[in-house]
Structure formats: C-alpha cells, structure tokens
C-alpha cells in the first residue's frame, strides 16, 4: 500500500511542498504552464498501455521525467522524436506530478550512430554515464553541452576511445569527481608517470612514498597515465593527435571503467554491452564456438 500512496501523491511534484497540511503554502505559481526546451533523450519506459515516461536531460532543469501520451501507438507522431539518443526540442505542459510533452521536434537524430554497432554501444554508454551523473532540478548546462558535443563527435566518426574518455573526464570534472592524475592524492607531490600507482577509491594517483598508506593502490602503466593527463588538460584537437594502439586503448578503458564504477557505485550495463559488441565481432568462426561462449 505504501507504494500506491507514494505514486498517487506524485513524489516528483516540484512546488515547495513542505508547508504543514492545512495551511496554504506558497503556490508553485512561478512555474509557467507551458515551457519549451531542448533536451537529449536518455531513456524511456512504458506507462500503461499506450504512454511512455521519457527521461530527458535538459540544460536548465537537469534530468527530468516527462509523459508522452500515446507514444506507443503505431500512429504516434511524437514517438520518433522522443527516441533515446535524440536531441529534440520539446514543449512541456506543467502536470501535477510530471510534465506532459505536447510537442516534440527532432533537432538531431545522430543517424550515423545507429548504423554502426560500436558507435551505437559507445553512445549508449555516454548516455548512461550522463544519466548517472545528472539530477533533477539542478542546472545541467555543462553536462548537456558535453553530451551533445560527444554524441556529435561520435556520429561524425571521431575515435571511439578518444571521444568516450574525453567525455568521461570532462563530465567527472564538471560533477565534482575529477580524478587526480598529476599529483599524489595523499601528499600533493608531483608523481612521475613511470613510478605511479593509482586507486579508484583514492581518486587518482599516489607517489611511491605514500603508496603503502593508500590501501589497494595498483601500479599504472606510464603510457596510460600520460594519455589520461593529456585528455584531461589538452584542447580536444591536440588530444586527438595522440595515437592509441589496441592494447593501450584497452588499458585506458579499464582504468576509466573502474573510476566510473567507483563514482556511480554500480556496474554500468552499457560498458558491458560495449565489450559484448566488440567480442561478437571478433567471435567464433563456428556455431559451436559461438554457442559455447558465455557473455
């Protein structure tokens, strides 16, 4: 029953609702009845038989859930404009618990992302990372801009590793989780790349002297560390000139996945999908091999 009550009361109501029952609190009159905003669609889920709840990342209002009525019907004009991984302009009518989409118009469908599995899975990862690091009613202008730019880079064919890692580092920075790759997180001394250890829990690198104190700090490949430093500090065009071989790319990815996992405190399902998609390509010449391989 508790669940039913919560849903009925509309937990997501935005107005100031801390006034005691029976008194007339300040009315949420400052929220206009209809607003227009651009947004990137992060995900959606079914609501009843024909509607959808769509989760949007907006520059001004952060991450919000809105209702798209009739979006599941075959003749819905709106559904195509509210697909995940679409940048869209929406008109929202203020609703009691959630806003209702009254118009949606695609600004960018990132179509080339949808034609390539590796680009698509990487884009899904960017979206899940953005989803985990943004919140409702918090200005998300920076996060929105970073996601927009990263999806644009992915769809025009920029390097998957480059785009993904640069996005992760910039978003972590903007969210207050900037990993420290240059100075020891314990004593503040500069750490030489070839004698560094790191730990996700500590939030970056530690020097040789402090390593004993930082439980679980593991050595980090100097090449990996140099790339991370460059991606964090150089302008994108310069970072893009760094050449990555497959092994270096894999190690970079592993370090950043550990960082992300630690920050969002859960496994990112899309990170697994990125790997599964890659593995499926390199797979199995026979059905027996393919069927024997467990994800």
């Amino acid at each position, binding site marked *: 029953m508790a669940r039913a009550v919560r*849903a*009925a009361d509309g937990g997501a109501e935005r107005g100031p609702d801390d006034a005691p029952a029976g008194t007339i609190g300040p009315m949420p009159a400052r929220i206009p009845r209809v607003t227009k905003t651009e947004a990137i669609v992060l995900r959606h889920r079914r609501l009843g038989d024909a509607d959808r709840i769509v989760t949007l990342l907006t520059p001004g209002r952060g991450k919000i859930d809105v209702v798209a009525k009739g979006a599941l019907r075959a003749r819905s004009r709106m559904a195509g404009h509210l697909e995940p991984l679409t940048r869209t302009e929406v008109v929202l009518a203020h609703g009691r618990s959630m806003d209702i989409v009254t118009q949606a118009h695609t600004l960018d469908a990132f179509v080339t992302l949808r034609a390539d599995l590796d680009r*698509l899975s990487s884009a899904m990862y960017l979206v899940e990372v953005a989803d985990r690091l943004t919140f409702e009613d918090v200005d998300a202008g920076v996060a929105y801009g970073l996601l927009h730019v990263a999806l644009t880079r992915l769809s025009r064919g920029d390097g998957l590793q480059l785009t993904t890692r640069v996005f992760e580092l910039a978003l972590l920075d903007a969210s207050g989780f900037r990993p420290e790759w240059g100075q020891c997180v314990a004593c503040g001394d500069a750490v030489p790349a070839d004698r560094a250890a790191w730990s996700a829990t500590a939030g970056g690198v530690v020097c040789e002297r402090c390593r004993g104190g930082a439980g679980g700090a593991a050595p980090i490949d100097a090449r990996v560390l140099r790339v991370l430093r460059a991606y964090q500090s150089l302008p994108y065009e310069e970072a893009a000139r760094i050449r990555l071989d497959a092994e270096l790319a894999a190690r970079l990815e592993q370090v950043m996945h550990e960082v992300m996992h630690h920050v969002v405190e859960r496994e990112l399902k899309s990170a697994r999908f990125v790997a599964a998609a890659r593995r499926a390509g390199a797979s199995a*010449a*026979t059905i027996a091999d393919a069927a024997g391989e467990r994800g």
Partner: protein
Amino acid sequence: MNTQGRPAADSPIARLVEAFHRLPGIGPKSAQRLAYHVLRAPQQEAQELADALLEVKRSVVLCARCQDLTTESPCRICGDASRERTVICVVEEPLDVRAIERTGGFRGLYHVLHGVISPADGVGPEDLKIQELLARLRDVDTGVTEVIVATNPNLEGEATSMYLGRLLRPLGITVTRLARGLPAGADLEYADDVTLGRALEFRQEVR
C-alpha cells in the same frame, strides 16, 4: 487518495490492491477499482480468477526450442512439420509471435528473446535468450539459412538486430530486418496486420 477510506496496510483488501498494483499498466486507482470489483463479485467469479492464475503458472512453460510460452514443449509451431525450417523470425515478446501469425505471411519458425538490448534499463545481450538461439542453430535447427530480426523499430530494436547480425553473419546465416514502414519509435504490438505483413515481405539485410 484520502486517509479515511484507506484499508489498514496489512488487511486482505490492501494486499489485493497491492497485488493488482504490481501488474504492468495498473495505477493505484485502477488497482483499487479491481480489488473492490473482486470483493463485490460472486464467490464463483473470484474462484475462477484464482484458479486461472494458478493454472497458468502451473501449465505454461517456455518452449525448449523457440522460448515462446506454451503448454507443451516443443510448442505447436516448432512441432508443425509443414513449417519452413530454413528461416527463423526473432521477436522480442510472445505477443509479437501472435501479431506476426495474424498476418498469415510467415511460414517459418520463431525465436522469442524475452526482451531487447537496453543497457539503460539494465538489459544486455546476456539477459536475453540469445545463447538459446545459438544452441538451437547448432543442435536442432541446423538447416537455418536466414534469421529475420523482427524487433521493434526503435533504438533498442536496432541495437539488438545489429548485435545479432554481427553474431550470426560469420556463421554463414543471412540476417535480415523488417522493412521500414513501421513508424520509428512504435511498438510491433500496435502495428496493423497489413503494415506488419508488408514490413515482413520487404525485409532488408542487416549490414
């Protein structure tokens, strides 16, 4: 919802309301309406509902081959000798099998994934019946030359078809996708028979 009319949280009525509310698409208001309907209905109607619920859990299983819901495994379609055994149509949900059967335009076999790749909802390839599809292609339906991926025409459906394409193509199987014409973002379940039939007929190879 007001506090006065609400049954105590541990009462039998509250338990029934809660049980209905857990069903997909049933909000708190509808759950209450259903519960009070059952309460007012004759004893026999309630008994039939309870029996039907238990019976369906007792007798319906997944077909060992196609993973569709069935009362006997292999299911009627898998066991039908007149169906073509060279082509498998992969769908998201059991309801999609019913929708495609209604078009009358498909005479091959099916495979139900029970979902679609959607990392944002915590669903990856490992959570779907993909290993079962591979095992089936290896052990049972060894003559299959084409797999039609009839997932919904949305992002998750595209991701799933591309993934299956990448997985199956090296095995010498042609992987096709329903033709466009189904509106983007729509759900197969809601497509009319003619549109769905045409999408099936004019399917295209997954690159």
